[in-house]
């Protein structure tokens, strides 16, 4: 799995094609794109087939999507042609993918990232799909599925919370207690280090550098609150603001307890070290469950919310990214694609998906939750109790800003955590390039 996500070039040609395009024929590719799409869309597709672009390339989601599409085919008689692309590659090539000949329905994320493509006209509104599925969703989910123009562009499938994960048996054996506040958290980390553990797993090597944002988001949400976090994400406040400086100060307290060598390790390897009890805790999403192959261990995994830093904000925010589907701008089989979306937004698709991949929570309220394991139930409670739900830094903000400015800056800083002034100054100096209009 590790290798899979590390070698997108190997896995498929579009990645390589984009690379070559980027290097040599960069503007030709860009200039030619609108021309190419002219022949791409429109009628001519097979009315019996819906194409589906999926970023679920890892074994578990792939199997889960297969179960969902199979059930849809049995129900409707429409064949679903799934085109699976490695997760990271899917994200990097999304703009050109959507301008070329995209699949009718494709997997995507809620939040700023969805709204961006809706605004650019690279996706079709799906209001009529929502007329059918709307009853199953909460107001918050509806809010997440609308573009800036108020139309629906997104059908949610699931969400999952980020939290601090640990192994119950390890905590029991060593007599560790779940920390409620930041000071307890640091004290626990210190104790774990003394006991010969890596207190906090770290795996942000290669394409996995996004995973450090979980800690950043929570530190900011807990220390400065949801409103400030969103202002920071949307480029409305300076990154040199003293509240942002405080985030790095807090982070600097924690970094000595990070597992060493994180810059060269994948998140999966880091998760494995928690599962193997070499590390004590992991700041990660519920998708850590995808790394578990032994059901006995799944029972032993638990989490606690990221600890309180400022009592004014408490634990009121939960980071819970929502994944789902969008409709491309000129689907070849629009009716079929909408039928497929209606199916995907329904309770049955959710149940089928969660049946294979128990590391997510159904977004549709009508989906049965009795098959949920303890972790899923607890996750649903955590999300249900939240006053604010954030998506994830690269979904709440301009992804280009996050991936080319914030991430390299933070990863470099993690190598030598100082007071962060220089890092934040570098990030701030780039902000205006991304948030002008």
């Amino acid at each position, binding site marked *: 799995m590790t290798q899979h996500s590390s070698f997108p070039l190997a896995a498929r040609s579009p990645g390589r094609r984009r690379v070559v395009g*980027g290097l*040599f024929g*960069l503007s030709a590719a860009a200039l030619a794109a609108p021309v190419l799409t002219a022949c791409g869309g429109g009628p001519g597709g097979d009315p019996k087939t819906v194409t589906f672009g999926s970023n679920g390339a890892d074994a578990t989601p792939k199997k889960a999507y297969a179960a969902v599409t199979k059930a849809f085919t049995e129900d409707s008689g429409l064949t679903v042609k799934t085109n699976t692309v490695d997760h990271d590659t899917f994200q990097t090539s999304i703009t050109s993918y959507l301008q070329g000949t995209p699949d009718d329905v494709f997997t995507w994320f809620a939040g700023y990232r969805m709204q961006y493509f809706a605004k650019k006209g690279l996706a079709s509104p799906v209001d009529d799909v929502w007329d059918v599925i709307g009853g199953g969703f909460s107001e918050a989910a509806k809010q997440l599925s609308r573009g800036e123009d108020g139309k629906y562009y997104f059908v949610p499938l699931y969400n999952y919370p980020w939290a601090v994960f640990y192994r119950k048996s390890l905590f029991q054996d060593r007599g560790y207690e779940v920390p409620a506040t930041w000071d307890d958290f640091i004290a626990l980390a210190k104790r774990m280090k003394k006991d*010969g553990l890596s207190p906090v797993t770290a795996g942000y090597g290669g394409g996995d550098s996004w995973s450090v944002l979980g800690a950043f988001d929570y530190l900011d949400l807990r220390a400065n609150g949801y409103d400030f976090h969103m202002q920071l994400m949307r480029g409305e406040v300076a990154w040199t603001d003293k509240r942002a400086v405080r985030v790095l100060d807090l982070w600097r307290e924690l970094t000595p307890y990070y597992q060493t060598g994180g*810059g*060269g390790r994948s998140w999966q390897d880091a998760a494995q070290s928690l599962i193997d009890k070499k590390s004590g805790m992991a700041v990660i999403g519920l998708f850590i469950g995808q790394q578990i192959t032994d059901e006995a261990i799944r029972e032993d995994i638990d989490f606690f919310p990221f600890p309180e830093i400022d009592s004014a904000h408490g634990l009121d925010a939960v980071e819970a990214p929502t994944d789902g589907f969008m409709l491309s701008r000129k689907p070849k089989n629009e009716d079929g694609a909408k039928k497929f979306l209606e199916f995907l937004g329904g309770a049955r698709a959710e149940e089928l998906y969660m049946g294979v991949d128990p590391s997510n929570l159904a977004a549709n309220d009508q989906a049965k939750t009795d098959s949920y394991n303890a972790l899923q139930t607890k996750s649903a409670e955590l999300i249900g109790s939240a006053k604010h739900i954030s998506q994830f830094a690269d979904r709440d903000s301009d992804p*280009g800003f996050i991936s080319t400015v914030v991430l*390299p800056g933070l990863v470099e800083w993690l*190598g030598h955590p100082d007071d962060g002034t220089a890092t934040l100054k570098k990030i701030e100096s780039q902000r205006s390039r991304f948030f002008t209009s």
Partner: protein
Amino acid sequence: MSSATSPGRLSRGDRLFLTLVIGLPLLALLVFVWLPALASIALSFTTWDGIDLSDIHWTGLENYAQIFTNYPPFWPAVQHNVIWLLFTALLPTPFGIFLAYQLDRKIRFTRVYQTAIFLPMVLSLAVVGFIWEIIYNPDTGLLNSVLGAAGAGGHIDWLGNPDLNLWAVLIASAWRHTGYIMILYLAGLKSVDPALREAAALDGAGGRQTFLKVIFPALKPVNVIILVVTVMESLRAFDIVYVLGGGTGSKPGMELLSLLITDNIVGEAGHIGYGSALAVILLLVSLAAIGTFLVQTFRKEDR
């Protein structure tokens, strides 16, 4: 052309043939090389998200000013490209030549050695990246196991540490490059007239002298090719860094101009204008390197 009956009077078929033979490549050259190059130059003075043509806004030299004064990864990238060039020119290239010279002396198992050394060049890049990722993995990697640095606390983070990772990638790149140079040089050595060696031996030249004073100068065309290959490989250095960096653009410590270009152009919310400006800078650097070199070579030829 030899089929023309007299100069200046071509038959209709000949003219059609010539039009096709010259016209098509010319068209391809214009469309696939010159148009993109010129469009990049034009786009480098604009901002554009790469989606609607109407969103292209003229900004003059703004992109360049930003890149030179306020783009943190730019100067490290330039520095890394220079390091890459110097490293490749000073280590794997001479080493490849050395290996070729040794293998050409018909030692035993020479075929086996040739195959072994050339093998990395035959492997697809993905496999090369895969192999080196296994070697450099901080927990289970070959290198850390051999060095005893895989335990908690003692990790050597080959690909994650910004002070180390460029060198780690350079080694992987050298592994490939050496075999490439070796095979090129071996082909050249095969064409050297054995009489030259005999003459040198008769004059009492040792192995080293023979190579430096006789063989090396005699292989000038091959040397030129190798120099060009080395410079080109260094300037376009991209693939192996991209693969070992996880396939998502530049990483601290491993920034390269080519990676910065893709960072800005490929991906969500692309900055085509900014990336184009970076591409133009790389183009100018390449042209300067190759131009200097060509002028040097041809000046000597003319004499």
